[in-house]
């Protein structure tokens, strides 16, 4: 008995209790997940390559090199992964297309989260009739397969990169809205909200300064999945020829070009395909890691 007490006492004294904020605790859990952290590193490398890489080339993604048409893979040459049938550098085109795919993915997810959180937080905080109307609308929209809706809206706003971006965001804010509403309902009657109201804040100020920031941590976990969804939707549409229009390209439209040419040159498919697949794998692992680390129900 005394042994036990003696055994437990010293560590208690030696290690003073360090307060960890829930966020830091979750972050620590996340950083122990090797798969998720590794995915983050790889994703960052892909991002750096796509945005920084093209600067290293002495020519642009649309420039044809007529001396090297359909050049083979030759790692230490001007065209490390060769060129396509127009003499355009394959690697450069894929990196350039990645700027569109990653850009639309991250910015689109961010915009969708902002819209969804404000919508959901308003519904949940105000409650009553407004909540009912707003969330019924979400329910109704949820019932429609979103891919068809994106295509319809895209026909209206036009087939530019911005139009594509808008039509994806307009459809994909639904899930963040549902999540944020759930948070807002549980926050509505907390003391700090009452205090804010007693202090004279308007309802909008409370929503924007108290409800929204406090719903964010849950939404952030979900938003990594949203990035994934936006990237898939964008490449899906571009693959079908309904998204990014030539001469601009994204991974989806490059995969489309590649899929049409598999009999001549499988590299046209393999290079953009593996960049897209690698990005999606990383995002999946990051999303899993974030959920394990941040979602209290999963512990």
């Amino acid at each position, binding site marked *: 008995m005394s042994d036990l007490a003696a055994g437990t006492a010293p560590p208690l004294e030696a290690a003073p209790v360090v307060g960890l904020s829930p966020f830091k605790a979750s972050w620590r859990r996340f950083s122990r997940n090797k798969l998720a952290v590794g995915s983050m590193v790889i994703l960052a490398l892909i991002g750096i390559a796509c945005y920084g890489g093209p600067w290293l080339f002495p020519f642009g993604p649309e420039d044809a090199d007529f001396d090297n048409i359909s050049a083979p893979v030759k790692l230490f040459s001007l065209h490390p992964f060769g060129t396509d049938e127009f003499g355009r550098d394959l690697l450069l085109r894929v990196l350039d297309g990645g700027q569109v795919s990653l850009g639309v993915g991250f910015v689109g997810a961010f915009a969708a989260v902002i819209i969804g959180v404000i919508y959901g937080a308003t519904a949940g905080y105000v409650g009553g009739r407004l909540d009912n109307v707003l969330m019924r609308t979400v329910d109704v929209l949820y019932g429609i397969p979103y891919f068809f809706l994106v295509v319809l809206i895209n026909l209206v706003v036009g087939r530019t990169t911005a139009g594509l971006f808008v039509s994806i965001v307009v459809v994909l804010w639904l899930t963040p809205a549902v999540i944020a509403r759930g948070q807002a309902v549980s926050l509505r009657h907390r003391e700090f909200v009452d205090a804010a109201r007693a202090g004279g804040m308007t309802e909008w100020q409370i929503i924007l300064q108290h409800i929204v920031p406090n719903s964010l941590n849950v939404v952030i976990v979900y938003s990594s999945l949203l990035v994934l969804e936006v990237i898939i939707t964008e490449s899906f549409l571009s693959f079908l020829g309904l998204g990014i229009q030539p001469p601009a390209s994204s991974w989806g439209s490059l995969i489309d070009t590649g899929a049409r040419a*598999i009999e001549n040159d499988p590299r046209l498919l393999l290079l953009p395909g593996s960049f897209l*697949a690698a990005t999606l*794998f990383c995002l999946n692992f990051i999303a899993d890691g974030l959920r394990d680390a941040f979602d209290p129900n999963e512990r």
Partner: protein
Amino acid sequence: MFSFAIRRIIGAIPTLFALITLSFFIMRVAPGGPFSGNRKLTEAVLANLNRAYHLDEPIWMQFGRYLWGLARFDFGPSMKYRDYSVTELIVQGFPVSVEVGFWAMLVATILGITLGIVGALRRNGVIDLSAGIIAMVGIAVPTFVIGPLLQILFGLELKWFPIAGWDGSINAKILPIFVLALPNIAYISRLTRGSMIEALRTNYVRTARAKGIGAMRVIWKHALTGAMLPVIAYLGPATAITVTGSVVVEQIFGIPGIGRYFVEGASNRDYPLVMGVTILYGGIVILANIVTDVVRGLLDPKVSYE
């Protein structure tokens, strides 16, 4: 139970109506009418065309006309294929799409559940690990990357199946069906595995074993019944994935289904065709969600009908 089904169906009406209304008005707002494309038409011809397609009427009358047409399964005339109505195009393509979609759902369910059960029984065995890898690939890599890759592997290199085309032979159907099924195989096998592992730990399974019931019987009769509920709940989303995926698979493999009409219609701005396919596929997904809910209600005593 019956009243639950009825109420669920009534609850879906606003969704269906929203789908129809949204697609109708979005299409009306969309720029570039059907006749603004190829060549300049004289005023008189344009007016006649507009009259023939009722485009000169106020929009509410057009909407009413469209709804009335829908009630009789008349989706209006196609703007691109001038000699066909959208209904005729759908009647042509839909059976093909249904065939591919149906088999893909069936393959996904059978293969997914089997892989899931084997994985749960032999955790971390060879089959479990390879099923895990297949599932990871199926979830993370979209069909429009996997499809062409399999075309290269099985069509070009191994020459087991034709690369693309639709000649009615079974050989031509295998690859598209598998590609369409793959994401659902992935999800269903993961779901089954998870819920099966959980079911094997429950008290009622332990009781069944303790009573001396044979291992196979316990697995098939006791554990599996409980483990199937999340899988059944997934059938609604699975239908949505299949419907969306069929658009891509039909494009990749050159299958003459309505998914291809949808893509063509969207790039030609053939609005009635796009609307027709959207409403049909949206309706199917809404219906699948209702069926899923009702079946869940029938099987799961914990789902309340209220």
